[in-house]
């Protein structure tokens, strides 16, 4: 328990068009920890992930967030990504005309440059991307297609995991990665995530259902309702929620 926090959220208040969505969230994530954020629809759990990644649809009106000791809100979204924050989108965006490979290469180049690493040349990058594709059971042609264009729900989510693997973030935010996935696709995605777990990398897993947490086992579970964390606990809390539903908490 001595490690310095990777992420420290204090009394975070955020709103959309004057409506409060996050109403005083505090959360501390240390390196290597996996935190699950659970909650009913509309509780603000996706908002939390998006605010941390820098989406400007939300206005932060109170509180503070430090990431690696620095004020997160001083950073543009791309700077947060380069510093090691990764958001796996609930609804990955389709970008026709830009190949997945182009997109991944531009992304990895930007992040590696920031970290003082050498840019990967095209063949080395291709090789790396293909290896990750194989682990995620994605065909190599997948890299040539437009970003998420015509991908199935499962392919889109695995594409997010692929990006995460290539970008090697220190904090991954998984926004309802399980939504729209059947059990097989869920397992593949979860294996992809588990393969990236280590003592330095942290995860915040946002989910409505405990099902995902059978595969990605969290260290902590927080229940969000009405924009507040109403209960925190260990893994067993998720199981309790599964049994009793959210009304028990609210």
């Amino acid at each position, binding site marked *: 328990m001595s490690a310095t926090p990777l992420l420290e959220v204090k009394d975070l208040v955020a709103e959309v068009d004057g409506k409060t969505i996050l109403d005083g969230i505090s959360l501390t994530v240390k390196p290597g920890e996996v935190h699950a954020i659970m909650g009913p629809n509309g509780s603000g759990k996706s908002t939390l992930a998006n605010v941390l990644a*820098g989406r400007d649809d939300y206005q932060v009106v109170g509180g503070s967030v430090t990431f690696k000791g620095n004020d997160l809100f001083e950073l543009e*979204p791309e700077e947060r990504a380069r510093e090691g924050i990764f958001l796996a989108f609930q609804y990955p965006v389709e970008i*026709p005309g830009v190949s997945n490979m182009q997109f991944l*290469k*531009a*992304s990895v180049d930007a992040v590696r440059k920031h970290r003082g690493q050498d840019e990967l040349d095209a063949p080395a990058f291709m090789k790396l991307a293909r290896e990750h594709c194989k682990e995620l059971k994605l065909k190599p042609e997948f890299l040539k297609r437009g970003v998420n264009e015509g991908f199935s729900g499962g392919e889109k989510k695995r594409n997010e995991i692929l990006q995460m693997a290539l970008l090697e973030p220190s904090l991954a935010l998984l926004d309802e990665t399980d939504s729209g996935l059947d059990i097989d696709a869920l397992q593949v995605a979860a294996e992809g995530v588990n393969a990236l777990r280590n003592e330095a990398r942290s995860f915040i897993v946002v989910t409505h259902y405990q099902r995902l947490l059978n595969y990605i086992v969290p260290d902590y579970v927080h229940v969000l309702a009405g924009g507040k964390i109403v209960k925190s606990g260990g893994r067993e809390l998720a199981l309790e929620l599964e049994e009793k539903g959210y009304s028990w908490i609210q």
Partner: protein
Amino acid sequence: MITPNELKQQAQNSWQHQSSLDWLSLPAKARATFAGLDIPTRKTEAWKYTPLTPLLNNAYLANQAAGDVDAGAAETRIGPLGDVSRLVFINGHFTPGLSRFSDLENQGIITLFSNANDTQRDLINAELGTGFEPKEHIFATLNYSSVADGLLIHAPADFKVQQAIQLVYLSTAEADTSLAQSRVLVCAEAGSSLELIEQFDSLGATNVFHNHMMEVSLHPNARMVHTRLQVEHESLTHINGLHIKLAQGSHYEQHALAFGSALKRNDINVSFNGNNAYCRLNGVFLSKHKQHIDNHLNLEHAAPHCNSDTEYKGFITDSSRAVFNGRIHIHQHAQKTAAHLNSKNLLLSKQAELDTKPELEIYADDVKCSHGASIGKLDDKSLFYFQSRGIDRATAEAMLCLGFVNEMVEQFPNGAVIELARQRLAEFFNDVDKLNNLWSLE
């Protein structure tokens, strides 16, 4: 600057110095029609957003362009397209030294008007000038008023032309501003098929006005795939008429890429004359600097059970101006028509201007039609997706622009043409802020 009337006089004077093919009946008729027409002005509806200033400022019609060229430079510019039959025209003049199409020439499939035999002459006389209303297309009428030569592509019944036919039109820098004219007549008999690649390019800056015409007649169940690259230097003035007649069960598909220039005007007119014909028009146009490009599409659904899909994209930046006019006209008896037209545009500068006008005129009561136009900036959600992956906003914007254009280009039916288009796009983007070094990212 001369007046529109003086321009008309200039055109009529130019005919006195030119010979036409003596067996061709159309020029005399076209000259008579032309005499009764007025040069369009801003008050002419079809030319409302496209002033003819370059034609009034430059005495193009006073001189006929010559066809001299450095063969090596031309060859380099044309680029290799692999296994195709190729015909090259320099300032409208057929250039045998750069062309190779002997197989199709021997089979009578490709013939210059000047080499046409009696049967071919009859065909040309019967078909040329029948695909449009001459009064509505003054530059087509001008084109047909003096026909020094032309190209006939004739696919016999049930004949599948295996090799794609590449038509290259290069404009050059002439001693004086001058006029280049060219025309192509395509007749595809019943059940035949062919692929045509039209490549309009230039060897550097050019002081030519290129007035081009193509008429296509697809007989029952004939198929044609047509790719058009208009990637000339921005100094060019180019007016292009394409008139397509579709008989029963025929299938026409076009993929087009066009850059703006001093003046560029494309008229595409499609007439559905028989049941169950299909037409796809995919196009992307780009303009920058002070360029101008005008696309006028007209689909005449005059027969029942025909379908058309039209998707045009525009990329407009700097102080350039672009026009898109897409009209679908469903005639009263054209029941069960399904016609869809969409115009999507990126307007990237406050000084740029786009006038887009989809038009639907429906006189039948059992049809499925849709049309839409959007003029937008880049999508915020997409931009955030890029940024959340560490890509800075400027690069994200650039990549989205390129994707917008590339989405159309990657649908081209021919891989070598896609490659060529991408090279020209790289040149186009070379001085477009932030896009210059990205296009080659593969």
